[in-house]
């Protein structure tokens, strides 16, 4: 069970959205990182058979991407801006989408309450979709995406706008699902990836600039992360020269976290890199975000 992407490119009206992407995604959680407009949603939509590729090859569990009919049985998709007819109740929405996924009536009756329980929405099954909070809607989104028990779950920016509690609940839910599925999580929230994904890919300007494990990404910044205290009037100069990934005000000085190939000053101390440092290093600093 894996997804193979070879030399994938996508152009919109002559403008490249994805350029020569090569990637293999295996069972488990896969995180796709990248700033807004990096091409994450385009890649997700291509995998969800919603838009065509311009060139390259993709196979999902051995099935060519062009065989949409077969693939739609295997794929569950939660789009970035998921919504359902507001006048339907939670159960009605699930039932309708179940019919569209061609889940038999008897199975729907069994599976829908189970899934609603899993996403903690069983008590709200009669509540209209319009009355759900953002977090509840996302959980409903996950429930509908796995209604037909897909092998591949594609989740596009699912935690954007959620409060920390909802975000953690959502991440845990995805991890549970990844036990027997390929779950592709696209996000620009690094914390989500760090907490859930073994393997990650970073897209920047339509190109895949990194693929590997979280540890491999962290190691990219090994020996390049420093912390030091600076005076406020020095900050502008340092910003021009280095990538700053953290900043804490300490009375009349500022403690900063800097990425640099060499120690930026005598008082700079080398630090253990985190995934955020490595990500910033990969995409070339905050000015590029």
């Amino acid at each position: 069970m894996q997804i193979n992407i070879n030399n994938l490119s996508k152009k919109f009206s002559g403008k490249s959205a994805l350029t020569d992407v090569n990637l293999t995604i295996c069972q488990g959680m896969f995180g796709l990182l990248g700033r807004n407009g990096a091409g994450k949603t385009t890649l997700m939509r291509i995998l969800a058979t919603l838009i065509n590729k311009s060139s390259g090859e993709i196979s999902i569990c051995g099935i060519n991407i062009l065989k949409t009919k077969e693939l739609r049985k295997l794929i569950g998709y939660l789009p970035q801006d998921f919504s359902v007819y507001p006048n339907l109740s939670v159960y009605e929405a699930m039932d309708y989408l179940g019919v569209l996924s061609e889940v038999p009536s008897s199975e729907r009756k069994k599976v829908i309450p189970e899934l609603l329980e899993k996403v903690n929405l069983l008590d709200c099954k009669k509540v209209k979709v319009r009355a759900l909070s953002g977090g509840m809607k996302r959980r409903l989104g996950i429930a509908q995406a796995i209604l037909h028990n897909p092998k591949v779950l594609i989740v596009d920016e699912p935690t954007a706008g959620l409060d920390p509690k909802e975000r953690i609940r959502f991440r845990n839910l995805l991890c549970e699902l990844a036990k027997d599925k390929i779950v592709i999580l696209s996000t620009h929230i690094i914390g989500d990836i760090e907490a859930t994904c073994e393997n990650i890919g970073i897209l920047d300007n339509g190109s895949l600039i990194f693929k590997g494990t979280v540890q491999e990404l962290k190691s990219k910044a090994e020996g390049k992360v420093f912390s030091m205290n600076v005076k406020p009037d020095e900050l502008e100069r340092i910003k021009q020269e280095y990538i700053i990934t953290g900043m804490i005000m300490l009375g009349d000085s500022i403690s900063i976290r800097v990425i640099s190939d060499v120690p930026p000053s005598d008082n700079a101390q080398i630090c253990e890199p985190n995934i955020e440092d490595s990500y910033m290093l990969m995409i070339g600093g905050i000015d590029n975000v």
Partner: protein
Amino acid sequence: MFNLFLKECKQLGKSLIYIVFICITIAFYTTQYYSSIKGNDPQYLGSALLKPSYVQDVEKYNKENNMYPYGSTSEEISEQVMPKATLMMYEEHMQGTYRAYPYGLIKHVKLDKEDTKKIEEIISQTTGKSLSELDKLHKTGKWSEIYFSSSSKDYASFKKLMEEANNIIGEQSNYSKENLKRFGVRPITYEEAMKTYKDLIEKDKITNGFARQFCDYMGIVMGLFPVFVVISFIMKDIKSNMKQVIYSRRVSSTKLILSRYSALVIMMMIPIFLLAIVSTFQAASFSEKLNLTVDYFAFFKYSIGWLMPTLMAVTAVGMFLTLLTETAIAIPVQMIWWYASITKGVLIGSYALSQLMIRFNTIYDRDEFVSNITNIFLNRMFFILISAIFVVASIHILNLKRIGRIDFYDKYSKCFTNFKGKFKNSLSK
């Protein structure tokens, strides 16, 4: 597929626009059909269900009651057409404006000097008098003294002159070939009245005649208002941001379109069927008083054969345009189509393939209906075919959008979005 169809029906049934559609249909039924048919209750003298009683002297009856016993009908009677048409032309000439009815709308035509002179010549030729002589006769109320020869030769040359006048004034003036016969009126005879009665009671079993008029009125509703329901229903995926969730699912485009299309057609036929039941009971209650029998299925037969093809075509075209453009472009398109059909057709007898709504604005004239049945059948079949073509095209469009094998959506939706943006900007300015 039946499951999906039921779910679509349920969703449509709950929508506000569908409730509004039902209200419009009922309002139209009440104000148009019901109000015109209720006079046929046998308790009223003018009821079509009452057997005509024989009147020996029709003219005497007319003088005493100021109406003919069995009504009157238009007929091209040269003795009546010539003086009346000429008088109208003279009066219009004096007023300086001539009436014409292109596309069913009244148009006041003003002629230039040259054309006015031509009309004057035509009036002089038909009456054999100069304009000053005619002025005198008109002022002194002696117009009837003008002699018109109604020999076939003279009438033929009169018609030629009228045709000439029609060409000068414009399409569908009072002097056009079709409108000329309206100047002639004759009383309906007892034999004709009896035939009409027998046709309605025995051949049409009352309800078949009533059903034709029912379809005539309800066709006007079905030719326009369904498009609003269709647009709202098809656009709900876009409005609710559900396009991607639905497009990525296993259901085939054929199944999805056919379920939605059939849900739209069946649900919009429901008010028609309910009104057909009401109308059948109404006709049955009329007939019971006279011990007459009715065809209980007439309203349903006519609703399905007559109204449904109109509804199917409007729904299919509306669905296709909405899917294609993701805008409400189908509304102006349907309005133009509806308007063209309603103004082009006459109340009875216009069954060309271009007629979206076919009309038969009477409960009588069974013979006229029977003589046109082939044309009506062809017309209805044509619209069923149109529906099928647009449904297939809708499936194709949805397929293309779902699989994204062409950039159709990107190109055209952007084009429409840009247009909408420009339009909004220009409005805000």
